[in-house]
Protein backbone atom coordinates (compact mmCIF):
# COMPACT_ATOMS: atom_id res chain seq x y z
CA UNK A 1 0.00 0.00 0.00
CA UNK A 2 1.48 3.34 -1.05
CA UNK A 3 0.94 6.60 0.76
CA UNK A 4 1.49 10.00 -0.85
CA UNK A 5 2.64 12.75 1.50
CA UNK A 6 1.81 16.20 0.23
CA UNK A 7 3.42 18.57 2.72
CA UNK A 8 5.38 21.76 2.10
CA UNK A 9 7.00 21.78 5.50
CA UNK A 10 10.20 19.78 5.12
CA UNK A 11 10.40 18.68 8.70
CA UNK A 12 6.79 17.46 8.88
CA UNK A 13 7.31 15.69 5.53
CA UNK A 14 10.39 13.81 6.76
CA UNK A 15 8.72 12.92 10.01
CA UNK A 16 5.67 11.50 8.25
CA UNK A 17 7.87 9.55 5.81
CA UNK A 18 9.84 7.94 8.64
CA UNK A 19 6.76 7.06 10.65
CA UNK A 20 4.90 5.58 7.70
CA UNK A 21 7.89 3.58 6.53
CA UNK A 22 8.31 2.33 10.07
CA UNK A 23 4.67 1.16 9.98
CA UNK A 24 5.39 -0.67 6.76
CA UNK A 25 3.98 1.67 4.12
CA UNK A 26 5.67 2.72 0.91
CA UNK A 27 5.84 6.51 0.70
CA UNK A 28 6.06 9.22 -1.93
CA UNK A 29 6.50 12.87 -1.10
CA UNK A 30 5.68 16.12 -2.84
CA UNK A 31 5.83 19.68 -1.56
CA UNK A 32 2.93 21.35 -3.35
CA UNK A 33 -0.68 20.72 -4.34
CA UNK A 34 -0.10 20.70 -8.08
CA UNK A 35 2.52 17.92 -7.94
CA UNK A 36 0.21 15.97 -5.65
CA UNK A 37 -2.66 16.28 -8.13
CA UNK A 38 -0.43 15.21 -11.01
CA UNK A 39 0.71 12.11 -9.17
CA UNK A 40 -2.85 11.21 -8.23
CA UNK A 41 -4.11 11.61 -11.79
CA UNK A 42 -1.38 9.46 -13.37
CA UNK A 43 -1.72 5.78 -14.31
CA UNK A 44 -1.18 4.08 -10.96
CA UNK A 45 -1.89 6.57 -8.20
CA UNK A 46 -1.04 5.91 -4.54
CA UNK A 47 -3.89 4.38 -2.57
CA UNK A 48 -3.80 6.82 0.39
CA UNK A 49 -2.96 10.53 0.33
CA UNK A 50 -2.01 12.71 3.28
CA UNK A 51 -2.83 16.21 2.13
CA UNK A 52 -1.64 19.29 3.93
CA UNK A 53 -4.31 21.97 3.88
CA UNK A 54 -1.93 24.87 3.41
CA UNK A 55 0.36 24.29 0.44
CA UNK A 56 1.84 26.40 -2.36
CA UNK A 57 0.22 26.43 -5.87
CA UNK A 58 -2.87 24.38 -4.95
CA UNK A 59 -3.99 24.00 -1.35
CA UNK A 60 -5.20 20.68 0.02
CA UNK A 61 -8.86 21.67 -0.16
CA UNK A 62 -8.60 22.45 -3.89
CA UNK A 63 -6.81 19.19 -4.56
CA UNK A 64 -9.65 17.35 -2.81
CA UNK A 65 -12.25 19.18 -4.91
CA UNK A 66 -10.42 18.53 -8.17
CA UNK A 67 -10.12 14.83 -7.40
CA UNK A 68 -13.79 14.53 -6.47
CA UNK A 69 -14.96 16.50 -9.49
CA UNK A 70 -14.39 13.37 -11.52
CA UNK A 71 -11.05 14.09 -13.08
CA UNK A 72 -9.52 11.04 -11.41
CA UNK A 73 -10.36 7.55 -12.48
CA UNK A 74 -9.43 5.80 -9.26
CA UNK A 75 -9.66 8.33 -6.44
CA UNK A 76 -7.35 7.54 -3.51
CA UNK A 77 -8.35 7.71 0.14
CA UNK A 78 -7.83 11.38 1.07
CA UNK A 79 -6.74 12.40 4.57
CA UNK A 80 -6.55 16.13 5.10
CA UNK A 81 -3.77 17.20 7.46
CA UNK A 82 -4.55 20.53 9.08
CA UNK A 83 -3.73 22.79 11.95
CA UNK A 84 -7.32 24.07 11.84
CA UNK A 85 -9.28 22.09 14.35
CA UNK A 86 -12.51 24.10 14.28
CA UNK A 87 -15.67 22.20 13.48
CA UNK A 88 -16.37 24.61 10.63
CA UNK A 89 -13.03 23.82 9.01
CA UNK A 90 -13.54 20.10 9.39
CA UNK A 91 -16.93 20.32 7.70
CA UNK A 92 -15.36 22.37 4.91
CA UNK A 93 -12.75 19.67 4.42
CA UNK A 94 -15.33 16.89 4.21
CA UNK A 95 -17.43 18.94 1.81
CA UNK A 96 -14.39 19.37 -0.44
CA UNK A 97 -14.17 15.60 -0.63
CA UNK A 98 -11.72 14.51 2.06
CA UNK A 99 -12.36 11.05 3.46
CA UNK A 100 -10.82 11.88 6.84
CA UNK A 101 -8.75 14.47 8.60
CA UNK A 102 -5.88 14.68 11.09
CA UNK A 103 -5.09 17.80 13.03
CA UNK A 104 -1.58 19.09 13.50
CA UNK A 105 0.30 18.50 15.65
CA UNK A 106 -0.79 14.89 15.26
CA UNK A 107 -0.83 12.06 17.67
CA UNK A 108 1.04 9.06 16.27
CA UNK A 109 -1.44 6.47 17.47
CA UNK A 110 -4.31 8.47 16.04
CA UNK A 111 -2.52 8.91 12.73
CA UNK A 112 -1.80 5.19 12.49
CA UNK A 113 -5.41 4.40 13.37
CA UNK A 114 -6.74 6.75 10.70
CA UNK A 115 -4.36 5.45 8.06
CA UNK A 116 -5.42 1.90 8.89
CA UNK A 117 -9.06 2.88 8.41
CA UNK A 118 -8.03 4.29 5.06
CA UNK A 119 -6.25 1.09 4.18
CA UNK A 120 -9.31 -0.93 5.10
CA UNK A 121 -11.53 1.29 2.98
CA UNK A 122 -9.19 1.00 0.01
CA UNK A 123 -9.05 -2.78 0.30
CA UNK A 124 -12.80 -3.03 0.67
CA UNK A 125 -13.34 -0.89 -2.37
CA UNK A 126 -10.89 -2.98 -4.35
CA UNK A 127 -12.64 -6.21 -3.45
CA UNK A 128 -16.00 -4.61 -4.22
CA UNK A 129 -14.75 -3.51 -7.58
CA UNK A 130 -13.44 -7.00 -8.20
CA UNK A 131 -16.72 -8.68 -7.34
CA UNK A 132 -18.56 -6.08 -9.38
CA UNK A 133 -16.33 -7.02 -12.25
CA UNK A 134 -17.01 -10.70 -11.80
CA UNK A 135 -20.74 -9.99 -11.54
CA UNK A 136 -20.50 -8.03 -14.75
CA UNK A 137 -18.62 -10.88 -16.38
CA UNK A 138 -21.17 -13.35 -15.13
CA UNK A 139 -24.02 -11.18 -16.37
CA UNK A 140 -22.38 -10.90 -19.76
CA UNK A 141 -21.87 -14.64 -19.95
CA UNK A 142 -25.50 -15.25 -19.04
CA UNK A 143 -26.61 -12.76 -21.63
CA UNK A 144 -24.58 -14.49 -24.31
CA UNK A 145 -25.92 -17.83 -23.20
CA UNK A 146 -29.47 -16.55 -23.29
CA UNK A 147 -28.92 -15.15 -26.74
CA UNK A 148 -27.50 -18.44 -27.99
CA UNK A 149 -30.39 -20.35 -26.48
CA UNK A 150 -32.87 -17.96 -28.02
CA UNK A 151 -31.26 -18.44 -31.42
CA UNK A 152 -31.38 -22.20 -30.99
CA UNK A 153 -35.00 -22.04 -29.95
CA UNK A 154 -35.94 -19.88 -32.91
CA UNK A 155 -34.13 -22.33 -35.13
CA UNK A 156 -35.76 -25.36 -33.53
CA UNK A 157 -39.12 -23.70 -33.76
CA UNK A 158 -38.60 -22.89 -37.41
CA UNK A 159 -37.52 -26.46 -38.04
CA UNK A 160 -40.54 -28.00 -36.35
CA UNK A 161 -42.92 -25.58 -38.04
CA UNK A 162 -41.37 -26.43 -41.37
CA UNK A 163 -41.60 -30.10 -40.49
CA UNK A 164 -45.33 -29.87 -39.86
CA UNK A 165 -45.99 -27.62 -42.83
CA UNK A 166 -43.77 -29.63 -45.11
CA UNK A 167 -45.66 -32.88 -44.91
CA UNK A 168 -48.93 -31.07 -45.59
CA UNK A 169 -47.55 -28.97 -48.41
CA UNK A 170 -45.92 -31.98 -50.02
CA UNK A 171 -49.24 -33.76 -50.26
CA UNK A 172 -51.08 -30.69 -51.45
CA UNK A 173 -48.56 -30.12 -54.22
CA UNK A 174 -48.61 -33.75 -55.31
CA UNK A 175 -51.98 -33.64 -57.04
CA UNK A 176 -51.51 -30.52 -59.14
CA UNK A 177 -48.02 -31.69 -60.08
CA UNK A 178 -49.44 -35.03 -61.11
CA UNK A 179 -52.03 -33.55 -63.42
CA UNK A 180 -49.57 -31.06 -64.85
CA UNK A 181 -47.11 -33.78 -65.79
CA UNK A 182 -49.89 -36.13 -66.82
CA UNK A 183 -51.43 -33.60 -69.13
CA UNK A 184 -48.02 -32.70 -70.44
CA UNK A 185 -47.39 -36.27 -71.32
CA UNK A 186 -50.70 -36.37 -73.14
CA UNK A 187 -49.59 -33.37 -75.18
CA UNK A 188 -46.29 -35.01 -75.91
CA UNK A 189 -48.03 -38.19 -76.96
CA UNK A 190 -50.26 -36.22 -79.31
CA UNK A 191 -47.44 -34.09 -80.62
CA UNK A 192 -46.15 -36.46 -83.38
CA UNK A 193 -49.62 -36.48 -84.97
CA UNK A 194 -50.02 -32.75 -84.64
CA UNK A 195 -46.50 -32.16 -85.92
CA UNK A 196 -46.98 -34.32 -88.97
CA UNK A 197 -50.22 -32.59 -89.87
CA UNK A 198 -48.70 -29.21 -89.30
CA UNK A 199 -45.67 -30.06 -91.43
CA UNK A 200 -47.81 -31.14 -94.33
CA UNK A 201 -49.92 -28.08 -93.86
CA UNK A 202 -46.84 -25.83 -93.86
CA UNK A 203 -45.50 -27.23 -97.11
CA UNK A 204 -48.67 -26.33 -98.97
CA UNK A 205 -49.18 -22.98 -97.25
CA UNK A 206 -48.98 -20.07 -99.68
CA UNK A 207 -48.99 -17.19 -97.22
CA UNK A 208 -45.48 -16.47 -95.92
CA UNK A 209 -46.52 -15.15 -92.52
CA UNK A 210 -48.73 -18.12 -91.85
CA UNK A 211 -45.96 -20.47 -92.96
CA UNK A 212 -43.40 -18.84 -90.71
CA UNK A 213 -45.78 -19.02 -87.82
CA UNK A 214 -46.25 -22.73 -88.32
CA UNK A 215 -42.53 -23.29 -88.62
CA UNK A 216 -42.11 -21.37 -85.41
CA UNK A 217 -44.66 -23.55 -83.65
CA UNK A 218 -42.97 -26.70 -84.95
CA UNK A 219 -39.67 -25.47 -83.59
CA UNK A 220 -40.85 -24.13 -80.25
CA UNK A 221 -43.32 -26.74 -79.07
CA UNK A 222 -40.75 -29.37 -78.12
CA UNK A 223 -38.91 -26.71 -76.12
CA UNK A 224 -42.12 -25.77 -74.34
CA UNK A 225 -42.66 -29.39 -73.39
CA UNK A 226 -39.13 -29.58 -72.13
CA UNK A 227 -39.57 -26.41 -70.09
CA UNK A 228 -42.69 -27.69 -68.38
CA UNK A 229 -41.05 -31.06 -67.82
CA UNK A 230 -38.10 -29.38 -66.13
CA UNK A 231 -40.46 -27.40 -63.91
CA UNK A 232 -42.42 -30.41 -62.75
CA UNK A 233 -39.21 -32.30 -62.18
CA UNK A 234 -37.94 -29.56 -59.94
CA UNK A 235 -41.20 -29.46 -57.99
CA UNK A 236 -40.97 -33.19 -57.55
CA UNK A 237 -37.47 -32.96 -56.15
CA UNK A 238 -38.57 -30.35 -53.64
CA UNK A 239 -41.62 -32.33 -52.63
CA UNK A 240 -39.50 -35.43 -52.18
CA UNK A 241 -37.18 -33.42 -49.97
CA UNK A 242 -40.03 -32.03 -47.92
CA UNK A 243 -41.56 -35.43 -47.42
CA UNK A 244 -38.56 -36.69 -45.53
CA UNK A 245 -39.57 -34.25 -42.81
CA UNK A 246 -42.61 -36.34 -42.03
CA UNK A 247 -41.19 -38.79 -39.58
CA UNK A 248 -43.55 -41.73 -39.89
CA UNK A 249 -42.24 -42.79 -43.23
CA UNK A 250 -39.33 -44.64 -41.75
CA UNK A 251 -39.98 -47.16 -39.06
CA UNK A 252 -37.82 -50.04 -40.15
CA UNK A 253 -34.71 -50.03 -37.98
CA UNK A 254 -31.86 -52.42 -38.31
CA UNK A 255 -28.19 -52.88 -37.60
CA UNK A 256 -26.28 -51.29 -40.43
CA UNK A 257 -22.79 -52.15 -41.59
CA UNK A 258 -21.10 -48.81 -42.23
CA UNK A 259 -18.80 -50.00 -45.00
CA UNK A 260 -21.67 -51.64 -46.86
CA UNK A 261 -23.70 -48.51 -46.34
CA UNK A 262 -20.96 -46.43 -47.96
CA UNK A 263 -20.68 -48.81 -50.92
CA UNK A 264 -24.43 -48.65 -51.48
CA UNK A 265 -24.51 -44.87 -51.18
CA UNK A 266 -21.64 -44.58 -53.67
CA UNK A 267 -23.47 -46.88 -56.03
CA UNK A 268 -26.36 -44.41 -56.00
CA UNK A 269 -24.00 -41.52 -56.79
CA UNK A 270 -22.05 -43.39 -59.46
CA UNK A 271 -23.38 -41.50 -62.44
CA UNK A 272 -22.19 -38.25 -60.87
CA UNK A 273 -18.88 -39.61 -59.65
CA UNK A 274 -17.49 -41.17 -62.80
CA UNK A 275 -16.65 -38.05 -64.77
CA UNK A 276 -14.76 -35.43 -62.84
CA UNK A 277 -14.05 -37.09 -59.51
CA UNK A 278 -11.07 -39.01 -58.29
CA UNK A 279 -12.49 -41.11 -55.46
CA UNK A 280 -10.28 -42.18 -52.56
CA UNK A 281 -11.44 -44.50 -49.83
CA UNK A 282 -9.82 -44.96 -46.47
CA UNK A 283 -12.18 -47.43 -44.90
CA UNK A 284 -11.32 -49.04 -41.60
CA UNK A 285 -12.19 -52.73 -41.45
CA UNK A 286 -14.10 -54.38 -38.61
CA UNK A 287 -16.05 -51.24 -37.89
CA UNK A 288 -18.90 -51.71 -35.41
CA UNK A 289 -22.46 -51.53 -36.71
CA UNK A 290 -24.77 -48.59 -36.25
CA UNK A 291 -28.50 -48.80 -35.59
CA UNK A 292 -31.24 -47.10 -37.58
CA UNK A 293 -32.99 -46.92 -40.91
CA UNK A 294 -30.73 -47.81 -43.81
CA UNK A 295 -32.42 -45.46 -46.31
CA UNK A 296 -31.99 -42.54 -43.95
CA UNK A 297 -28.30 -43.25 -43.37
CA UNK A 298 -27.90 -43.63 -47.11
CA UNK A 299 -29.60 -40.32 -47.66
CA UNK A 300 -27.06 -38.57 -45.42
CA UNK A 301 -24.05 -40.08 -47.17
CA UNK A 302 -25.49 -39.49 -50.65
CA UNK A 303 -26.13 -35.92 -49.65
CA UNK A 304 -22.57 -35.32 -48.49
CA UNK A 305 -21.13 -36.99 -51.56
CA UNK A 306 -23.33 -35.11 -54.04
CA UNK A 307 -22.52 -31.81 -52.34
CA UNK A 308 -18.85 -32.66 -52.70
CA UNK A 309 -19.36 -33.52 -56.37
CA UNK A 310 -21.19 -30.22 -56.96
CA UNK A 311 -18.35 -28.33 -55.28
CA UNK A 312 -15.77 -30.10 -57.42
CA UNK A 313 -17.64 -29.72 -60.68
CA UNK A 314 -17.62 -25.95 -60.19
CA UNK A 315 -13.84 -26.20 -60.44
CA UNK A 316 -13.61 -28.83 -63.15
CA UNK A 317 -11.98 -31.82 -61.53
CA UNK A 318 -11.01 -32.91 -58.06
CA UNK A 319 -10.77 -35.50 -55.34
CA UNK A 320 -13.27 -36.86 -52.87
CA UNK A 321 -11.98 -38.88 -49.96
CA UNK A 322 -14.17 -41.04 -47.80
CA UNK A 323 -12.83 -42.07 -44.44
CA UNK A 324 -14.35 -44.16 -41.69
CA UNK A 325 -13.11 -44.26 -38.13
CA UNK A 326 -14.37 -45.68 -34.89
CA UNK A 327 -13.70 -45.64 -31.21
CA UNK A 328 -15.59 -47.10 -28.27
CA UNK A 329 -18.29 -44.43 -28.47
CA UNK A 330 -19.09 -44.16 -32.09
CA UNK A 331 -18.45 -44.44 -35.77
CA UNK A 332 -17.41 -41.45 -37.87
CA UNK A 333 -17.80 -41.11 -41.58
CA UNK A 334 -15.80 -38.30 -43.18
CA UNK A 335 -16.23 -36.93 -46.64
CA UNK A 336 -13.49 -34.59 -47.81
CA UNK A 337 -13.41 -32.73 -51.07
CA UNK A 338 -10.92 -30.58 -52.93
CA UNK A 339 -13.56 -28.05 -53.96
CA UNK A 340 -13.58 -24.36 -53.11
CA UNK A 341 -14.61 -24.92 -49.49
CA UNK A 342 -17.34 -23.16 -47.52
CA UNK A 343 -17.29 -19.46 -46.79
CA UNK A 344 -17.51 -18.35 -43.19
CA UNK A 345 -20.84 -16.71 -43.90
CA UNK A 346 -22.32 -19.78 -45.55
CA UNK A 347 -21.20 -21.92 -42.62
CA UNK A 348 -23.68 -20.19 -40.32
CA UNK A 349 -26.69 -21.02 -42.49
CA UNK A 350 -25.55 -24.40 -43.73
CA UNK A 351 -28.25 -26.34 -41.89
CA UNK A 352 -31.07 -23.86 -42.35
CA UNK A 353 -33.83 -25.26 -44.53
CA UNK A 354 -33.89 -23.81 -48.05
CA UNK A 355 -30.44 -22.29 -47.68
CA UNK A 356 -28.33 -23.12 -50.70
CA UNK A 357 -25.19 -21.81 -52.36
CA UNK A 358 -25.99 -23.69 -55.53
CA UNK A 359 -27.49 -22.20 -58.64
CA UNK A 360 -31.27 -21.91 -58.72
CA UNK A 361 -32.73 -25.25 -59.64
CA UNK A 362 -29.63 -27.18 -58.74
CA UNK A 363 -30.17 -27.48 -55.03
CA UNK A 364 -33.30 -27.43 -52.91
CA UNK A 365 -31.50 -26.20 -49.80
CA UNK A 366 -32.97 -29.10 -47.87
CA UNK A 367 -30.22 -31.71 -48.08
CA UNK A 368 -28.13 -30.69 -45.13
CA UNK A 369 -30.98 -29.70 -42.87
CA UNK A 370 -32.56 -33.09 -43.48
CA UNK A 371 -29.24 -34.84 -42.95
CA UNK A 372 -28.83 -33.05 -39.64
CA UNK A 373 -32.32 -34.09 -38.55
CA UNK A 374 -31.57 -37.68 -39.45
CA UNK A 375 -28.18 -37.83 -37.76
CA UNK A 376 -29.49 -36.19 -34.59
CA UNK A 377 -32.47 -38.52 -34.53
CA UNK A 378 -30.00 -41.37 -34.06
CA UNK A 379 -28.14 -39.55 -31.33
CA UNK A 380 -25.29 -38.58 -33.64
CA UNK A 381 -23.82 -35.30 -34.77
CA UNK A 382 -22.65 -33.60 -37.92
CA UNK A 383 -19.36 -31.77 -38.11
CA UNK A 384 -18.18 -29.33 -40.74
CA UNK A 385 -14.65 -28.09 -41.11
CA UNK A 386 -12.00 -27.31 -43.69
CA UNK A 387 -10.51 -30.26 -45.45
CA UNK A 388 -6.79 -30.88 -45.81
CA UNK A 389 -7.69 -31.46 -49.48
CA UNK A 390 -8.52 -27.75 -49.70
CA UNK A 391 -12.31 -27.94 -49.77
CA UNK A 392 -14.89 -28.87 -47.20
CA UNK A 393 -14.95 -31.73 -44.77
CA UNK A 394 -18.29 -33.13 -43.66
CA UNK A 395 -18.49 -35.71 -40.95
CA UNK A 396 -21.34 -37.71 -39.51
CA UNK A 397 -20.84 -39.43 -36.21
CA UNK A 398 -23.17 -42.19 -35.05
CA UNK A 399 -23.23 -44.08 -31.79
CA UNK A 400 -22.41 -47.77 -32.18
CA UNK A 401 -25.13 -50.38 -31.73
CA UNK A 402 -24.10 -51.49 -28.25
CA UNK A 403 -24.40 -47.90 -26.99
CA UNK A 404 -27.51 -46.68 -28.65
CA UNK A 405 -29.77 -49.53 -29.60
CA UNK A 406 -33.35 -48.65 -28.89
CA UNK A 407 -32.47 -45.08 -28.04
CA UNK A 408 -33.74 -43.70 -31.34
CA UNK A 409 -35.75 -40.56 -30.75
Amino acid at each position, binding site marked *: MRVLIAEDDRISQRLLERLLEYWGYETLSVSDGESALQLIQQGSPPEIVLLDWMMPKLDGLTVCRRIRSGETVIPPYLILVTARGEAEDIVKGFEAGADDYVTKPFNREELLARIKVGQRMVELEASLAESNQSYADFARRMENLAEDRAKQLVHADRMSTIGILAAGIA*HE*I*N*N*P*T*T*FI*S*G*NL*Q*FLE*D*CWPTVRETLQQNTETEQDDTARHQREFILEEFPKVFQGIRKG*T*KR*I*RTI*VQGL*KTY*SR*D*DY*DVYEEVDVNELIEQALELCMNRLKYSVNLEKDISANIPKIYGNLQQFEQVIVNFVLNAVDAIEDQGEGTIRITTEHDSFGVSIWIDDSGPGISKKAKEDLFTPFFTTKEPGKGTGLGLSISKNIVEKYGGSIEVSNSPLGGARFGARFPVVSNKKGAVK
Partner: protein
Amino acid sequence: MTYRILIVDDEAEIREMLGRHFRMKGYEVTPASGGAEALQCLDKKRYEVVVSDIVMPGMKGTELLQEIRQQYPMSHVIMITGYVTLENALAAMRRGADTCIFKPFEDFEELDGAVEKAIEDLEHWKRKLVQLQGMKPGQGGSEHDRIVE
Protein backbone atom coordinates in the same frame (compact mmCIF):
# COMPACT_ATOMS: atom_id res chain seq x y z
CA MET B 1 -61.65 -55.79 -77.85
CA THR B 2 -61.91 -52.60 -75.90
CA TYR B 3 -60.87 -52.80 -72.27
CA ARG B 4 -62.60 -50.73 -69.65
CA ILE B 5 -60.88 -48.68 -67.02
CA LEU B 6 -62.66 -47.11 -64.08
CA ILE B 7 -60.88 -44.07 -62.71
CA VAL B 8 -61.66 -43.10 -59.13
CA ASP B 9 -60.34 -39.81 -57.80
CA ASP B 10 -61.98 -36.97 -55.90
CA GLU B 11 -60.02 -34.44 -57.90
CA ALA B 12 -61.60 -33.68 -61.29
CA GLU B 13 -58.33 -32.64 -62.93
CA ILE B 14 -56.73 -35.96 -62.09
CA ARG B 15 -59.76 -37.88 -63.40
CA GLU B 16 -59.73 -35.89 -66.62
CA MET B 17 -56.01 -36.20 -67.09
CA LEU B 18 -55.95 -39.95 -66.51
CA GLY B 19 -59.07 -40.40 -68.62
CA ARG B 20 -57.61 -38.49 -71.50
CA HIS B 21 -54.44 -40.52 -71.35
CA PHE B 22 -56.15 -43.88 -71.36
CA ARG B 23 -58.73 -42.91 -73.99
CA MET B 24 -55.87 -41.93 -76.23
CA LYS B 25 -54.44 -45.38 -75.71
CA GLY B 26 -57.73 -46.89 -76.83
CA TYR B 27 -59.31 -47.82 -73.51
CA GLU B 28 -62.89 -47.10 -72.62
CA VAL B 29 -62.75 -44.87 -69.58
CA THR B 30 -65.34 -44.10 -66.90
CA PRO B 31 -64.58 -41.51 -64.24
CA ALA B 32 -65.93 -41.75 -60.69
CA SER B 33 -65.48 -39.10 -58.04
CA GLY B 34 -65.50 -41.46 -55.06
CA GLY B 35 -65.85 -44.98 -53.75
CA ALA B 36 -69.67 -45.03 -53.71
CA GLU B 37 -69.92 -43.83 -57.29
CA ALA B 38 -67.28 -46.35 -58.31
CA LEU B 39 -69.29 -49.21 -56.82
CA GLN B 40 -72.37 -48.06 -58.74
CA CYS B 41 -70.37 -48.10 -61.97
CA LEU B 42 -69.01 -51.56 -61.20
CA ASP B 43 -72.52 -52.75 -60.58
CA LYS B 44 -73.56 -51.71 -64.08
CA LYS B 45 -70.56 -52.72 -66.14
CA ARG B 46 -67.53 -54.91 -65.93
CA TYR B 47 -64.19 -53.12 -65.69
CA GLU B 48 -60.92 -54.85 -66.35
CA VAL B 49 -58.99 -52.30 -64.35
CA VAL B 50 -59.84 -49.87 -61.60
CA VAL B 51 -57.38 -47.07 -60.94
CA SER B 52 -58.15 -45.49 -57.59
CA ASP B 53 -56.79 -42.78 -55.34
CA ILE B 54 -56.39 -43.77 -51.68
CA VAL B 55 -57.11 -40.59 -49.78
CA MET B 56 -60.61 -39.41 -50.65
CA PRO B 57 -63.51 -37.97 -48.69
CA GLY B 58 -66.07 -40.62 -47.76
CA MET B 59 -65.00 -44.09 -48.68
CA LYS B 60 -61.26 -44.47 -48.71
CA GLY B 61 -59.52 -46.05 -51.66
CA THR B 62 -58.40 -48.98 -49.56
CA GLU B 63 -62.01 -49.63 -48.47
CA LEU B 64 -63.13 -49.54 -52.08
CA LEU B 65 -60.32 -51.96 -52.85
CA GLN B 66 -61.63 -54.37 -50.24
CA GLU B 67 -65.16 -54.16 -51.66
CA ILE B 68 -63.94 -54.78 -55.18
CA ARG B 69 -61.87 -57.77 -54.09
CA GLN B 70 -64.95 -59.32 -52.51
CA GLN B 71 -67.62 -58.40 -55.05
CA TYR B 72 -65.71 -58.15 -58.31
CA PRO B 73 -62.65 -60.37 -57.92
CA MET B 74 -61.81 -60.30 -61.62
CA SER B 75 -61.26 -56.57 -61.72
CA HIS B 76 -57.68 -55.55 -61.18
CA VAL B 77 -57.10 -52.62 -58.87
CA ILE B 78 -54.21 -50.18 -59.09
CA MET B 79 -53.89 -47.74 -56.22
CA ILE B 80 -52.45 -44.26 -56.54
CA THR B 81 -51.55 -42.09 -53.60
CA GLY B 82 -49.93 -38.78 -52.83
CA TYR B 83 -49.65 -39.81 -49.20
CA VAL B 84 -46.57 -41.89 -49.47
CA THR B 85 -46.69 -43.76 -46.19
CA LEU B 86 -45.90 -47.28 -45.21
CA GLU B 87 -49.42 -47.61 -43.85
CA ASN B 88 -50.97 -46.84 -47.24
CA ALA B 89 -48.59 -49.08 -49.15
CA LEU B 90 -49.14 -51.99 -46.74
CA ALA B 91 -52.93 -51.56 -46.79
CA ALA B 92 -52.89 -51.59 -50.60
CA MET B 93 -50.74 -54.70 -50.64
CA ARG B 94 -52.61 -56.65 -47.97
CA ARG B 95 -56.00 -55.95 -49.45
CA GLY B 96 -54.89 -57.23 -52.81
CA ALA B 97 -54.10 -54.27 -55.04
CA ASP B 98 -51.94 -55.01 -58.08
CA THR B 99 -49.62 -52.24 -57.11
CA CYS B 100 -49.47 -48.87 -55.43
CA ILE B 101 -48.17 -45.92 -57.42
CA PHE B 102 -46.88 -42.85 -55.67
CA LYS B 103 -47.74 -39.34 -56.77
CA PRO B 104 -46.39 -37.25 -58.24
CA PHE B 105 -45.20 -39.41 -61.11
CA GLU B 106 -42.99 -38.15 -63.84
CA ASP B 107 -44.56 -40.13 -66.64
CA PHE B 108 -47.10 -42.87 -67.18
CA GLU B 109 -44.55 -45.63 -67.52
CA GLU B 110 -45.31 -47.26 -64.20
CA LEU B 111 -49.07 -46.82 -64.46
CA ASP B 112 -49.18 -48.00 -68.07
CA GLY B 113 -47.01 -50.95 -67.13
CA ALA B 114 -49.37 -51.89 -64.31
CA VAL B 115 -52.44 -51.60 -66.54
CA GLU B 116 -50.81 -53.65 -69.28
CA LYS B 117 -49.82 -56.32 -66.79
CA ALA B 118 -53.38 -56.48 -65.50
CA ILE B 119 -54.74 -56.85 -69.02
CA GLU B 120 -52.14 -59.48 -69.78
CA ASP B 121 -53.19 -61.41 -66.70
CA LEU B 122 -56.81 -61.30 -67.80
CA GLU B 123 -55.83 -62.33 -71.32
CA HIS B 124 -53.91 -65.24 -69.91
CA TRP B 125 -56.96 -66.55 -68.09
CA LYS B 126 -59.11 -65.89 -71.09
CA ARG B 127 -56.83 -68.08 -73.16
CA LYS B 128 -56.96 -70.73 -70.49
CA LEU B 129 -60.75 -70.70 -70.49
CA VAL B 130 -60.93 -70.82 -74.26
CA GLN B 131 -58.60 -73.79 -74.06
CA LEU B 132 -60.92 -75.32 -71.50
CA GLN B 133 -63.92 -74.75 -73.75
CA GLY B 134 -62.11 -76.56 -76.51
CA MET B 135 -61.80 -79.51 -74.13
CA LYS B 136 -65.54 -79.40 -73.55
CA PRO B 137 -65.47 -79.72 -69.75
CA GLY B 138 -69.22 -80.08 -69.55
CA GLN B 139 -70.09 -77.01 -67.59
CA GLY B 140 -69.13 -73.33 -67.69
CA GLY B 141 -68.93 -71.26 -64.54
CA SER B 142 -70.24 -67.75 -64.09
CA GLU B 143 -66.70 -66.43 -63.77
CA HIS B 144 -65.95 -67.89 -67.17
CA ASP B 145 -68.92 -66.04 -68.61
CA ARG B 146 -67.68 -62.83 -67.10
CA ILE B 147 -64.29 -63.10 -68.69
CA VAL B 148 -64.95 -64.42 -72.16
CA GLU B 149 -68.35 -62.86 -72.72
